[in-house]
């Protein structure tokens, strides 16, 4: 086992332990507010992961993931507010609405690649953003719709619902973890290898018999699923759905988070999202112009760590591995040098 793998496992374990202890540890160390910030980070990480799945693993840069986030959000919002659904059917409606939308737009979008793909995805998301803004009675437009959440589970007289902050946190944590685990499984599977083959060279991939169009479409729908789950969770979390979350700026933020964290790595989006949201929360309470710092951070990271923060970390650890490996072989090296 190399140092890198050992160290990364330790970090992962510590991270998992931290996430599990958040509802007790964080209020003791800071305050309750940060528990909800961490919940929000988890949700947005999932959204950034949907950008990462497409860009980091299939090589398609989508600038319109907010569309599927928005559909997940409105599936929940409209499901509860207008259709009076209970928790789980509304959750299902949000996710299936996002996936259906991803399938329909993907059928067209994945015919194109690179710049054209980026533009067509942003155009699709703009179309539905403007539609959502016009359909005010249904969507509330930019102001959005507020709703009260039905309980998540109820057995007899006992109920679990998002009004309990600890339950809310663990529900979000569990859902996000399941999604990341699913993504991990897909990436490790032959399907994931096929994605990577397409990312690295789509012509070669098609020559070894991969159906590039179909695989891209699958990835697109999967990314729609991730974004849809994130949107649905965010609707539960905020008891709120709004067209403003479908604007291209939201998609752009996810692209930035994913690339700054490290595109093509499972945990990159979490790191990138955490960095930006933590800075925003830390600075915005003291200084109204916190965007200035966020902007500078984005620029500094891409200049100093072009492979993203995870890439920087891995390069560092690989350097450590090389260093220890060199120690062991010093004798041989010396002789060849002499």
């Amino acid at each position, binding site marked *: 086992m190399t140092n890198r793998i050992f160290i990364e496992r330790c970090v992962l374990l510590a991270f998992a332990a931290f996430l599990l202890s958040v509802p007790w540890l964080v209020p003791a160390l800071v305050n309750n507010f940060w528990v909800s910030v961490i919940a929000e980070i988890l949700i947005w990480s999932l959204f950034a992961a949907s950008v990462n799945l497409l*860009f980091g693993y299939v090589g398609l*840069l989508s600038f319109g993931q907010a569309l599927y986030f928005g559909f997940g959000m409105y599936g929940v919002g409209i499901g509860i507010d207008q259709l009076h659904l209970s928790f789980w059917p509304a959750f299902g409606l949000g996710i299936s609405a996002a996936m259906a939308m991803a399938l329909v737009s993907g059928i*067209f979008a994945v*015919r*194109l690649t690179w*710049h*054209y793909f*980026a*533009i*067509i995805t*942003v*155009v*699709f998301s*703009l*179309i539905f953003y*403007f*539609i959502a*803004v*016009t359909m005010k009675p249904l969507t509330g437009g930019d102001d959005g719709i507020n709703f009260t959440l039905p309980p998540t589970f109820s057995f007899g007289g006992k109920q679990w619902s998002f009004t309990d902050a600890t339950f809310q946190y663990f529900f979000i944590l569990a859902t996000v973890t399941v999604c990341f685990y699913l993504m991990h499984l897909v990436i490790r599977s032959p399907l994931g290898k096929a994605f990577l083959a397409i990312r690295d060279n789509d012509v070669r991939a098609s020559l070894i018999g991969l159906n590039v169009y179909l695989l891209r479409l699958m990835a697109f729908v999967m990314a729609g699923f991730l974004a849809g789950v994130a949107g649905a969770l965010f609707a539960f979390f905020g008891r709120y759905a709004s067209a403003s979350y479908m604007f*291209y*700026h939201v998609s*752009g*933020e996810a*692209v*930035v988070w994913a*690339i*700054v964290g490290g*595109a093509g790595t499972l945990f990159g989006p979490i790191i990138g999202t955490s960095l930006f949201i933590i800075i925003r929360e830390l600075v915005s309470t003291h200084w109204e*112009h916190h*965007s*200035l710092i*966020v*902007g*500078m*951070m*984005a*620029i500094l*990271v*891409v*200049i100093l760590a*072009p492979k993203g923060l995870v890439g920087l970390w891995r390069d560092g650890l690989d350097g450590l591995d090389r260093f220890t490996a060199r120690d062991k072989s010093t004798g041989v090296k010396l002789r060849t040098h002499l």
Partner: protein
Amino acid sequence: MMDTLLLLALNGLIWGLIIALIALGLSVIFGLLDVINIAHGDFFMVGTVLAWAALEVTGNFWIGFIVVPLICLALGALIQVVVIQPIRGVAALSIVATFGLSLILQEVVRMTFGATPRRMLPPISGTVPLFGIEYEIYRMFAAVLSLAALGAFFWFLQHTKIGTWMRAVRHDRDTATAMGIPAQRVYIFTFAIGFALAGFGGVVAAPITTVDFRGGVDLLPVCFIAVIIGGLGNLPGTAAAAILLSLLEGIIQSAANPTVARISSLVLMSAVLLLRPQGLFKGHVR
């Protein structure tokens, strides 16, 4: 009805000319530096704000037409050296860097200019009769000015040394460098001129639109769409696409509300992208 149609079509056409200027800036930056410039809408916004500031400071609107593009040129050169140079060549990183730039520009404007949108009075007021309607003189003037700037830019590309260098570097970076063209300086200049074009568009548009720190946000997708529909690397195509799109939106606006007009033009664009991803004009213009 006819009058509204004509008025909105004319407004669309003139707005299209301004967008053409901005989109050309985006296209040269994209074509030469492989930079997907998310901050380009904000370059336009900076132009409108500087026009407002020039009027506040000097009391004379006309000075803005000269001073603002020059300031933008200098700002563009500075930004290229500080932000774009270190990440040159990696399009994905350019998105993040220019996104950061966009945040910085918007925030600096919000800090200095303020968050409230303002309106500027056009330096020439009054209307002229035109095809049976009364039309604002300033908008006519804006059209002439944009056309002149478009013409000057194309003349510059074709007939000056730096313009030739820009075309050469865009065509084949390595050969151009081997021929002794200072590619590095061409990059700086290209980015600067891209900013200046957007800034000039901002000055021209300032009295027509509102001056607001978020003024570039809506504009950005429109410019990108013009660049793609016009055909990547096809500058006249980009200009034509910008004008057509805006004209079309103006015409649809006479029958429906602006949002519906925006939706229809976006749907049309998706169709163009899917049916002719090489751009509308490939094979017609150069």
